C-alpha cells in the first residue's frame, strides 16, 4: 500500500522541525477530516506528525480578560466551557451546530480551522478540481453547485469553507496563534482563510510547516451579546447552506460594537465589513439592519443554482441582529 510515516513529537518545537525536515508531512490531530481525505486519496502525506498529545489542550484565562484556547481542545469541550458559553456564546452555539456529537468529541480547534471544503468534486479523484489538482478545471461550475459559493469565488473555484466554528471566531475578532520555524505569529481568524483567486489549492495564509498552537478569544468581545444561526438540509449533521454569527452591542439605541460573519457563502468565513461599517454608530433598528445587510449581499454573484443563498443569508442575519438588539425602551 501507499505507506506513510508516523511521528509523535514531544514538543511543538520538535513538531515544526519534523515538518520542515520531511517534505509532504501533515499534522494530525483529531483526524476527522484528514483521515477521510487519506482514504479518498485526496491527501497523500509522506509523514503524519501526530500533535494529539502535545500540551495544547488547555483553555486559559489571560489577565486582560481574553481566553486562550489550545489547538487540540476538542470541539465538544470548547462548546461546553462555561466561560465560552457565558462570554462568547456565538462560539459555543456554532460548535454545537457543527457535525455530530461523535465528531465533535474528536475534532480539535486547530483542525476545525484547517478542514477542507466538502465540495464533491474536490473529493472525487475522477473529476476535475483546481483545488485538488491545480489546472484540472472546476467540475462544480457546470455541475451541481447548489451548496457552493455566492461571494468571493473565482473562475477557478467556487468551493465554500465548511466550518461553523470559524464563522463565529471571525465575528468575535478571534486570533489564530501560529508557530513555525520562523517563530510565533498571530493572524485574525477573519483573515486566516483566503479567497480562491488564482490559487484555490491554498485554503489559508498559513505558511508551510506552521502549526496552529491556539486561538485567542479577545477581551474586546467578551460578554458582548453574540449569537450564531445556521440553516441546513436536516436538523443535525449537515453543513450550512448559510449561517451567520453576529456580535452586537447597542448603547442608547445606537450600534456601539458590531461583528457579522457569514458561513456557507464563500471560500472563507465572510466577515461582512460593509454591514459593520454601515451599522457602527447607526440606530439599532430593523430598517437599519436590513439596509446594512443588503449592502453586503449586493456583492453576491450567485451561480446557476444557488441564488437562494443570498436571501437565506439575508433572513438569517436580520433574524439574529434583531434578536440581539435590545427592545427599544418604552416611550
Amino acid at each position, binding site marked *: 500500500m501507499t505507506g506513510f510515516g508516523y511521528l509523535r513529537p514531544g514538543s511543538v518545537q520538535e513538531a515544526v522541525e519534523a515538518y520542515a525536515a520531511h517534505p509532504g508531512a501533515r499534522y494530525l490531530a483529531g483526524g476527522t477530516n484528514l483521515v477521510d481525505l487519506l482514504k479518498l486519496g485526496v491527501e497523500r502525506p509522506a509523514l503524519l506528525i501526530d500533535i494529539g498529545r502535545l500540551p495544547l489542550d488547555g483553555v486559559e484565562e489571560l489577565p486582560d480578560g481574553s481566553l486562550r484556547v489550545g489547538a487540540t481542545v476538542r470541539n465538544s469541550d470548547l462548546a461546553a466551557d462555561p466561560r465560552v458559553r457565558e462570554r462568547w456564546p456565538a462560539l459555543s452555539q456554532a460548535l454545537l451546530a457543527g457535525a455530530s456529537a461523535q465528531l465533535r468529541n474528536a475534532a480539535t480547534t486547530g483542525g476545525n480551522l484547517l478542514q477542507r471544503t466538502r465540495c464533491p468534486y474536490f473529493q472525487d479523484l475522477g473529476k476535475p478540481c483546481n483545488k485538488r489538482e491545480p489546472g484540472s478545471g472546476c467540475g462544480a461550475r457546470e455541475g451541481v453547485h*447548489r451548496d457552493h459559493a455566492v461571494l468571493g469565488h473565482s473562475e477557478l473555484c467556487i468551493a465554500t469553507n465548511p466550518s461553523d466554528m470559524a464563522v463565529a471566531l471571525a465575528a468575535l475578532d478571534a486570533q489564530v496563534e501560529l508557530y513555525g520555524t520562523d517563530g510565533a505569529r498571530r493572524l485574525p481568524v477573519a483573515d486566516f482563510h483566503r479567497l480562491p483567486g488564482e490559487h484555490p489549492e491554498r485554503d489559508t495564509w498559513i505558511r508551510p510547516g506552521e502549526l496552529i498552537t491556539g486561538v485567542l478569544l479577545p477581551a474586546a468581545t467578551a460578554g458582548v451579546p453574540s449569537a450564531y444561526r445556521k440553516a441546513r438540509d436536516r*436538523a443535525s449533521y449537515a453543513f450550512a447552506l448559510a449561517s451567520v454569527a453576529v456580535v452586537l452591542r447597542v448603547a442608547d439605541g445606537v450600534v456601539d460594537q458590531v461583528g457579522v460573519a457569514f458561513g456557507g457563502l464563500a471560500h472563507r468565513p465572510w466577515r461582512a465589513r460593509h454591514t459593520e461599517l454601515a451599522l457602527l454608530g447607526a440606530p439599532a433598528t430593523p430598517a437599519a439592519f436590513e439596509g446594512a445587510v443588503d449592502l453586503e449581499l449586493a456583492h453576491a454573484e450567485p451561480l446557476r443554482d444557488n441564488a437562494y443563498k443570498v436571501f*437565506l443569508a439575508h*433572513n438569517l442575519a436580520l*433574524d439574529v441582529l434583531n434578536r440581539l438588539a435590545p427592545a427599544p425602551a418604552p416611550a
Partner: protein
Amino acid sequence: MTGTTGSPLGAPAERREGRQKLTGAARYAAEYTLPGRAQAWPVPAAVAHGRVRAVDTSAALALPGVLAVLTPFDAPRLAEPEDRTLAVLQNPHVPHRGWCVALAVADTLETARAAARAVRVTYDTSPHDAGPVDGHPGGYDPEEAGGQPGRVEHGDPDAAFASAEVRVDVVYRVPPLHNHPMEPHASTAHWDGDRLTVYTSSQGGTAVRSVLAQLFRLPEERITVVAEHVGGGFGSKGTPRPDVVLAALAARHTGRPVTLAYPRRDLPAVVGHRAPTVQRLRLGARPDGRLTAVLHEVTTQTSRVREFVEYAGVVSRVMYATPNLRSTHHVVPLDVPSPSWMRAPGEAPGMYALESALDELADALGLDPVELRVRNEPEREPASGKPFSSRHVVECLREGARRFGWAGRDPRPGVRREGPLLLGTGVAAATYPVQTAPSTATAEARPDGTFVVRLNAADIGTGARTVLAQIAADALGVPLDRVRTEVGHTDLPPAPLAGGSMGTASWGWAVHEACARLAAHPEQGPVVRADTTGTADADSPYARHAFGAHFAEVAVDTVTGEIRVRRLLGIFAAGRILNARTARSQFTGAMIMGLGMALTEHSTLDRAFGDFPESDLASYHVPVHADVPAVEADWIDEHDPHLNPMGSKGIGEIGIVGTAAALGNAVHHATGIRFRELPLTPDRILAGLLSEG
C-alpha cells in the same frame, strides 16, 4: 392488537439475533476471514460514455501485496447475464460513469485501494446524454411497468376530464433516491476446485445461486450462498449485484478467497436507485367530489444497460373509483447509472403524486381531504374490476383522524402562526399490493421435544427468523422457545427473496404448511417438507392490497425555509399482524424513510458528468434523530380469509407509501403554497415563500 390468547402469533417477540447484533457477534458478508482471504477494490469509470482503450496495471502490480488487477480485457469470461448490470469486466464498453472498469486484488484492503488508484485507464470518450427527460425525443412507452401493463385506460379520460366541473392538472416531481443500506453491498467468494462458496449481503440467496450458476456455467449444487445477516437492502440487494460477481471472478482469477465490500462512494452508480419521475396528474370531479376522470401519466428514465421502469402510475389503478382512467408510463434511456428497486418502487413516488393531487382537488372543492377520499371509495378495484379481498382504507382514515385530532381542522392554509413558524397538518392514504411467491420449507421434530424450521429465507433486519418461529410455534401448538429457525443458506430448502413485502407471507406459508402437517401427522416426521408451488402463486379472484393512512403536522420556518415535523401518525390495515414489535419497527422505519423522501433525501443527476455527486452519508441526507419527531404507527384488526394461512399482508413497504404526500400536504396547509417537487429543502421553501410573499 396481539394474537389469540396463548398463540405466539402476534406476540411482540424479541428479535432472536438482537444480542448477536448488539454485541458484534453477528457476522456479515465481509467478515468471513477465510484463510488467505484477499481484498478487492473496484476502479470506477471516469467517463460517462465510451470505451476503455487501455488499462495500464504496471504501477498497481508493482505495489507489494498486490495479487492481480482484473480488466475488461483479461477477466474470466462469463455467460451473458439476463441482467446486464452483472456483465462486469466482460467488454470495454462504458455505459455510464462509475461502471466498474477494473478490479484490484491484494493482501489487504488498504493495498487493494492503493492499487486501484494506481491503475491508469485511458478511454475513447463518446458524447453522453444525461437528460433531462422532459420532452426528450428518445423516450418510449414500455410494454410493462413493474410486471403490469405499462398503459391502462378505461372510458374516455380526455373527454371526461375536459368536461369535468372541477379540474386539477398538475405535475409532481420526485428526484433520484438511493437506498443506502447501512451495510454496503459486500461479498466474500471462495473456490474449492469447481465448487464456489459466496458469503453475500443479499435479500435472496436462492436467486444469487441461480444467477451465479448461469454466469459461471456451473450446476447449482456446486454453489453455496450464505447470507446469514444482512445489514439492510431496501430493494437494492433484491437481485445479485456486481459485488458478488466481481468477488467470484477475482477469487477464480487469483485462486484465493476474495472479499469485495463495494466502497460507499461507488454504490450510487452501481447498485441501483429509485429513478426520478415526472408525473402529470389530471383529476376531474363533480362538485360533490366524485371523481369522473383520473389521468396519471409518468415520465421516467432508465439506463442503456437495462430497462427498469419506476411504475409510479399503477397506484391510480387501485385507489379511487372513476369511470374514466388513464395510467401510463414513458421511459427515456440515458447514459446514466441503472435504476432498480427501492422500497415501494412505483407506489412510493406514485402515491406522493396522486395523494398530493387529491389534496389539491379537496382544496378546489372546499371539501375535507379525508371526506374526499371516503367519497371516492371504490366497490371493486377500478382497473381490474375484481372485488377486494379486504379494504379498510376508510377505517384507517377514520381511526387516524380520531387519534390525530383531525376533527374541527381549519382548512384555510397559511393562517396558523407561532412566531416565525407556520403550522399545518396533512393527510394521505397508503396502499401496497399483497404478493406471494412459492417457497419450500422443512420442519423437524427433535427427540428432545424441540423443533427446527429450515428454509433459505433472508433476514435483512426485519426479524424474519423471529416471525417464522412464531408461525411455526403457532402451527405446531408449542411454545415459541421450542422452535429454532435456520435461514440464510442455500443448503436449506429454497425460498424466495425478501422483497416486494412478500417474504413473511411466502416463507410463512411453507413453514405453516410443514409444521401443521408435522403436528397433525407426527408419523410423517421427523422431517416434513412443504412446497407451496401452485398454491402460493395461484391466481386470486380478489384484488389484494394492504392500505393505510398517514397524518402529519409540520412547522415551516419562514426565516430559513426549514421544515420540522412535529407529529407523524400512520394507521395500517395489513391483515393479521404477526409480531407487534417487529411490525411496528417496519412501519415506523418506513415512515421515517418517507419523511426523508419528503424533506431531506435526494441525489442530483449531474448532467455534466452523468452521475450523482452525493456519494456518502454526509451528503446524501437520510433523516437523523433530530429530524424524527413523535412517529407513531398502529394498525386496525383486519381479518382477511383470502390471503395465506396466517392471514397476513406484507408490511415492509407500505409505511413509506403516502408519507411524503401527507407531509407535503401539511406544508401546503402551513404555507398556502404548493410545492410540487421533492425534497422540500430550505432553498425551495424559501423561494416559494419569497415569491408568494
